[in-house]
């Protein structure tokens, strides 16, 4: 549909007002909210995400687009709720105890939101108790753990064990990342995945949630 392409194109340029206006127009034309979301906004964000991944766009440009998307989502959300459209997935993010680094985690959050996921960021220096509580309360599809230090990365394992003990491990995919982390370490601590950067984290979450093992 012409208007959805136009919406996507304007979103890609980060034109917030125009994007919002086109969203309203599309709704007025009777296009279903889901279709506007998928074929307009998310289609546009996917192109932006792809360009970022290929180093063709800088993060500040992506952030402008993400802000434009938010404008449109504010318009769209009531309609999506009315149509009982399920979220694409909810992601809980946090940096483990003893570690106060958060810029990497924040980037992952931004990219995931851009890709249409709901993101809850619990912050830094998070204990396993807090992770467990928040998983129980928020029921995320994916828990993303971040660590930047060789002395805090080991805490990821404890979080995973704590989830197991509380019978939550089967209900949430756990992914890990941060400077000292490798795929090998992720395998070792029985995480479901490792992402080396924010773009890969989006791909990883997509593939984990598409692999059918979604729980809620």
């Amino acid at each position: 549909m012409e208007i959805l392409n136009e919406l996507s194109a304007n979103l890609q340029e980060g034109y917030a007002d125009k994007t919002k206006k086109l969203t309203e127009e599309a709704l007025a034309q009777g296009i279903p909210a889901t279709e506007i979301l998928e074929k307009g906004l998310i289609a546009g964000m996917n192109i932006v995400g792809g360009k970022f991944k290929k180093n063709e766009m800088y993060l500040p440009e992506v952030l402008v687009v993400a802000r434009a998307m938010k404008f449109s989502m504010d318009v769209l959300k009531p309609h999506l709720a009315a149509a009982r459209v399920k979220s694409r997935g909810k992601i809980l993010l946090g940096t483990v105890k003893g570690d106060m680094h958060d810029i990497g985690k924040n980037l992952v959050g931004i990219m995931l939101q851009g890709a249409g996921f709901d993101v809850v960021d619990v912050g830094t220096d998070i204990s396993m108790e807090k992770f467990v509580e928040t998983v129980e309360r928020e029921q995320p599809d994916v828990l993303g753990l971040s660590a930047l230090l060789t002395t805090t990365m080991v805490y990821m394992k404890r979080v995973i064990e704590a989830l197991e003990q509380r019978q939550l491990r089967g209900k949430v995919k756990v992914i890990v990342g941060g400077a000292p982390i490798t795929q090998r370490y992720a395998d070792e601590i029985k995480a479901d995945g490792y992402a080396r950067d924010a773009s890969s984290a989006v791909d990883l979450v997509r593939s984990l949630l598409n692999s059918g093992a979604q729980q809620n």
Partner: protein
Amino acid sequence: MKQTFSSLALGPSELVFGRAKHPIIRNGVSIGSGSVLPEIKFTLSSISIEEATREEIRSQYSEMITDVCQRAVDLHQSQLVVEFELLPQMTVESHWGVMITELLKEVMEQFRSTEGLQSLLRVTPTDTREFKKPPLRREGRELEDVLTSFRTCANAGGDLLSIESTGGKEVTDQAIMETDVRGMLFGVGVLAAADMEFLWERICEIAHETATIPAGDTACGIANTAMVLADKHYIPKVFAAVVRAMTAVRSLIAYEAGAIGPGKDCGYENAYIKAITGFPMSMEGKSAACAHLSTVGNIAGAYTDLWSNESVQNVKLLSAMAPVVSMEQLIYDCRLFNTSLRGGKEMDLRDLLVDSDSSLDPQAFIFRPEIVQMLSATIIAGRSHYEKTLSVALATAACLDQGVKDGTLLLSQREQKWLHKIAGELADLPTEEGQFIEEEKRKWLGHVDLAQYGLPR
């Protein structure tokens, strides 16, 4: 202890590795008086810090310090600096910091007496004020922890006191991601500057009480964050270059408060600080690639007095443990520096180091000697931290632009576009600080507690 720097300490023909105007001599080690020494750093490989792992941690540190000292002896290196960069938990629980400081110092002193290896220990507590969000900067347990860590590590054997303090990071993290020039000026020129004044007054006091050397602070959390994100292609390199120059103003404040160097390694802005103060500086470049990839691997050595590997964890490589590998690489780099100094060829080598990097990346370009001179002069001409930060940012953007025009700096079209955007935004900023703060502070109200920087909320 307050010092002001109203003229440049080193002219273009004096600005070179191994020679500072005010060398530091302590315990048989002399820094900046005609040679470059290695500064070696290492950290634990994957392990948690707790009572149960205490012995394993002690044995890792003991192995690392013994092995690097032995390698220095084997390679005929007779002087050396070791940095102990405390992990956050070692700062919060000061007995850990003390224990490791003592352990390192003991082995270092043993090598002094048996092998004649002269060494100094730099202790670098973590700025754990970051744990609270938004951080308390001027009060509270976190600040106490940091100051206690300094005091206890100094008493336990530290010679040089440093930190990578994080004032302003509440703002700069986001401003970097957004390539937000105003935010950076607020974070660096207003907040970080205010925090440096506050913090370094206290650190210099502790140094005075403990007869240790207040050595300096780096804008790691700001400028290196920008550098790393630029390296990952997340933000424009020209922005990272401008940010680097801006942070020189913030890092200089440690010296205004009484620090005398050697400035800490990961502050590439130390190039400007050396030109301004004449104090010796530690720098890191290609042989710190284990810790930071960068675009300044050679040029970072052009003015250095200590040459550092930044950090490496205790993992085995094919030849030896990684700290030993770093030690060896630093020693060879230092041999090259020092051979040129002995033969009067240091300016030739400096220029090779400079020319090998400077045209390829804006972050390297701003360390060309004539540009260091110019930007340093710009900084000292400013009448306030704010004015200095703004004017050096403007000057940096201008000299990058000039480099592109001259053909001495290769810059992609995309980077050039960003450079002009940044230069334009800088030009629009008010020269009056009060006005700027009023305009800007609203944006950051949720992120930062202005009272913690001595500013009215």
